[in-house]
């Protein structure tokens, strides 16, 4: 038994994260199109989209390396919010000119891309229920006994299937990967 307890010791399940999903692709891609698609996706889903970092390096003659760190937040209800993290790294990127099917020329990028996606469902994001030990105990009880099923079965599920996996499918679609497609797109609802 601890004498000095921290809020983390008795707040049950303050957040629930999704598994990280990885994409790797080597070939020709339209980086601008991909960037627009990701930003537009979050805008449509009513997220606040933050570009935390954009780093450009040219370590060798093979091409440039970009690193993007995106974070998107949506306060779904007063009690919980969704946070989605997108990390993109590109390697050996160089511009090439591509002739499309209709004969027009377009500038695209050739290189390697690595994408990491994961989300987090956070309860009590304003920390209202952590101001005193009593409130923190109440929050722990609420999360553990009252709202647990909803948290694991609805809030987390919607974040995972409607946001993270759908974004994953969208990125694959824009990279024109053979595994594109999303089997769970009709999972629930129409939004």
């Amino acid at each position, binding site marked *: 038994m601890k004498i000095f307890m921290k809020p983390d010791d008795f707040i049950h399940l303050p957040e629930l994260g999704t*598994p990280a999903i990885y994409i*790797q692709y080597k*070939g020709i891609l339209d980086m601008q199109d991909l960037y627009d698609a990701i930003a537009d996706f979050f805008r449509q889903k009513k997220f606040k989209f933050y570009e935390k970092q954009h780093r450009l390096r040219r370590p060798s003659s093979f091409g440039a390396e970009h690193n993007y760190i995106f974070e998107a937040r949506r306060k779904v209800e007063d009690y919980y919010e969704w946070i989605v993290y997108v990390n993109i790294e590109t390697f050996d990127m160089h511009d090439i000119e591509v002739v499309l099917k209709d004969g027009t020329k377009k500038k695209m990028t050739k290189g390697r891309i690595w994408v990491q996606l994961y989300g987090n469902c956070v309860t009590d994001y304003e920390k209202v229920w952590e101001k005193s030990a009593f409130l923190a105990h109440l929050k722990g009880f609420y999360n553990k006994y009252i709202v647990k099923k909803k948290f694991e079965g609805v809030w987390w599920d919607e974040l*995972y*299937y409607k946001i993270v*996996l759908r974004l994953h499918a969208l990125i694959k679609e824009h990279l024109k990967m*053979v*595994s594109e497609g999303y*089997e769970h797109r009709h999972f629930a609802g129409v939004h």
Partner: protein
Amino acid sequence: MGHLKIVVDHEKIDYSGPLDIGDLFRMIENFLWERGFDKKQDKDFEQNTERGKFIEWQISPWKKITDYTRYIVKIRVLGYDMLKSNAVHSGKKTKVDNGRIIIVIDGFMEYDYDNKWDDVPILHFFRTMYDYFIFKAYTERFEQRLVHDVNHLIDHIEKFLNLYRYYAVISKPGP
């Protein structure tokens, strides 16, 4: 992490020839979705090489069967030298992928997935006793059902790839 037990170890399918790899992935996902598995995508890699596409696709969907036990099925698909080629399907010209794929399937049972019984050694001991002796009949039944699900999936894949099959899923009609 709870106690992870390998029940199906490395079932392998090696195939060379024409196929629609997108349809294969959709079929696998759909199969597991219909059986109540949650999706977990581990890898989705694609590299365009001089000889064709190299693909690595791995999922490990899970299904909680009780509040103590869950199934995990790990499916890994490797595609080598995948190229598009012309084919005639139902009198229509279409493009299909052509290359070599290797599919590896593992089935796991995870006991105590919430890690409630591994804080102290005595709890760990009780858990082991419970799994192997007290609850043995249920444990074996769960394992048998996992093996059945994996065999059913393999049967579906073999059917999709038009291979010779040995496994027939026979369900007993209800009373």
